[in-house]
């Protein structure tokens, strides 16, 4: 099994390297090339020439790539020509905010999705299942940003019970911090909860029909133990995989939710850098998101390997 994990790590590193090639290539595909993108004043030929010289853009591409990777690995991501703040500093400031939003939403989604999935699976085809499945499908169809706008309309504009947006750091009090996170968390978590519910339901229906569940019941085990320990324990493998696969959607969600609720996280930074044509910041943010995605996927794969007994013996083929 350890070689299997080692293999996953190697694949993740290769994927990460390829992702850096993509980001590097994209910056070089910009109209006017990277010098235009990195110069504060891209209209003056002298400034362009100076930037070319400073960043070594007149060297061959592979040489530039190796140099750039070296800089990225040592945490040097350049400086924003718009704000004059180092990109790494900006990412450092904003990452915790996005992580808080992501983790809270994930917890909300699991807390809502797993019990709903189990409840639906216990009596498939009955009313509970029908209602839970339909609501989940509704959750899947709900665009985050509109759900957020509706939330603001109802809870901030009409009822005045929740703030309409913004972010309060933990230093401003954990109560205030969480109060500002409630709506964004629910908005971002709902779609994910729907996916988790559906997958939990499918996995549970399969698990509840398995022989070991019949055996557990035959041994006189209580029904709640059979459902919540035996069957759910095995279904969680699927659920974890699905959470990994949903990350791409979660990232898109983070960007929109941060935009709607005016939360200064990585998503907002990414969008602002597009609007302002702030390429060093954009490059840093995109690289961070892609790296985060690959790393979390690696962790999902490793978890999967660790808890799935079928993978402990042999493995054939590659990723499925």
């Amino acid at each position, binding site marked *: 099994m350890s070689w299997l994990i080692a293999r996953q790590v190697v694949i993740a590193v290769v994927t990460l390297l390829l992702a850096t090639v*993509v980001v590097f290539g994209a910056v070089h595909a910009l109209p006017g090339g990277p010098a235009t993108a990195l110069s504060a004043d891209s209209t003056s030929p002298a400034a362009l020439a100076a930037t070319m010289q400073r960043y070594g853009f007149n060297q061959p591409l592979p040489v530039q790539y190796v140099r750039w990777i070296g800089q990225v690995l040592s945490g040097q991501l350049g400086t924003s020509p718009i704000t004059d703040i180092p990109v790494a500093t900006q990412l450092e400031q904003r990452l915790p905010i996005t992580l808080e939003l992501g983790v809270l939403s994930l917890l909300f989604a699991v807390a809502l999705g797993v019990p709903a999935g189990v409840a639906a699976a216990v009596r498939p085809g009955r009313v509970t299942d029908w209602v839970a499945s339909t609501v989940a*499908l509704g959750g899947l169809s709900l665009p985050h940003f509109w759900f957020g706008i509706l939330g603001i309309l109802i809870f901030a504009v009409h009822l005045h019970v929740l703030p309409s947006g913004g972010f309060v750091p933990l230093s401003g009090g954990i109560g205030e911090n969480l109060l500002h996170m409630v709506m964004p968390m629910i908005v971002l978590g709902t779609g994910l909860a729907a996916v988790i519910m559906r997958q939990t339901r499918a996995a549970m229906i399969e698990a509840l029909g398995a022989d070991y569940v019949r055996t557990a019941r035959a041994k006189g085990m209580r029904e709640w133990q059979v459902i919540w320990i035996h069957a759910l324990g095995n279904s969680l493998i699927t659920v974890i995989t699905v959470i990994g696969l949903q990350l791409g959607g979660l990232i898109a969600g983070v960007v929109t939710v941060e935009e709607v609720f005016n939360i200064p996280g990585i998503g907002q930074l*990414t969008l602002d850098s597009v609007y302002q044509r702030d390429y060093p910041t954009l490059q840093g943010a995109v690289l961070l998101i892609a790296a985060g995605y690959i790393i979390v996927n690696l962790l999902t794969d490793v978890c999967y390997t660790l808890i799935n007994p079928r993978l402990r013996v042999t493995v054939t083929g590659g990723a499925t």
Partner: protein
Amino acid sequence: MTAGVAGPDRPAPVSARAAARIVRAARARPRFAALAVVGAVGSLIVVLVAIFGPLAAPYNPNAVNFNLVLAPPGTAHHLLGTDQLGRDVLSRMLYGARTTLAAGIVSTLLGTAVGLPYGMIAGYFRGPVDMLLMRIADVMLAFPFLLLAVGLAAISQPTLWTAVLALGVAQVPAIARIARGATLEIRDLEYVQAALVNGESDLTILRRQILPNVLRPVTVQTTVAIPTSIVGASILAFLGLGVQPPTADWGGMLAQAQQYLYQSPWLGVFPGVAIFLTAFCFNLLGDGITDALNPRRQR
């Protein structure tokens, strides 16, 4: 996830088997079948609105009227009111259906057109080809549609077509994985081997033996992907990374409505309801098709 194949014999025509499965699935779960019918009817209505709606629109969607801005719904001659420029909301909704729906459907078709052969080739040739193609797919997965759209917006001006491209490319890895999985499952079956022994070319085998069996799981994925793409297209328009104003689009309408939520909350309601109901109907339909065509969901 992938289709199981009953035996070594050449399977019956896909359409006949699919029809039989749909009937069986409907009988097994009548409540869900009813919802799938609702979804199918709803989706059909939305498609018809997208095609014929603009013909029925009372006004030009971009005609401004500064004498009648932010009129509430129910105003004479403006059933759904007017927006901040006095444009007729109903007309913009009808035209917007076309933009939003086209973006969702065209991007899914694009993703399928690339992902299906991509996955089939990886699964059919296996070995180093498979390894290389799937690693590239993994890299693509690390760039969700929003990042692709962000990148395209950075390189060129964002338009409806950069949004469609981003949404389509982002779907390639998922469809490719499914096509690859299904291809791997059947490529060693006797009838494929028989075709090989007969001296049929790889292309012929891929087309005649593999494709019909890969189509079913890919269709399932495609029907699930359409509503996601519709919502995705509206997200991109909302963020300014897709369709640009003044083109009527539901996501773009919501972006503009955000500034007028206090005075005119309805501007933020109609397009959202439209996106939600459209995605919901397509999801109901997709779920029904998944139930019917995916053997693992039948019990």
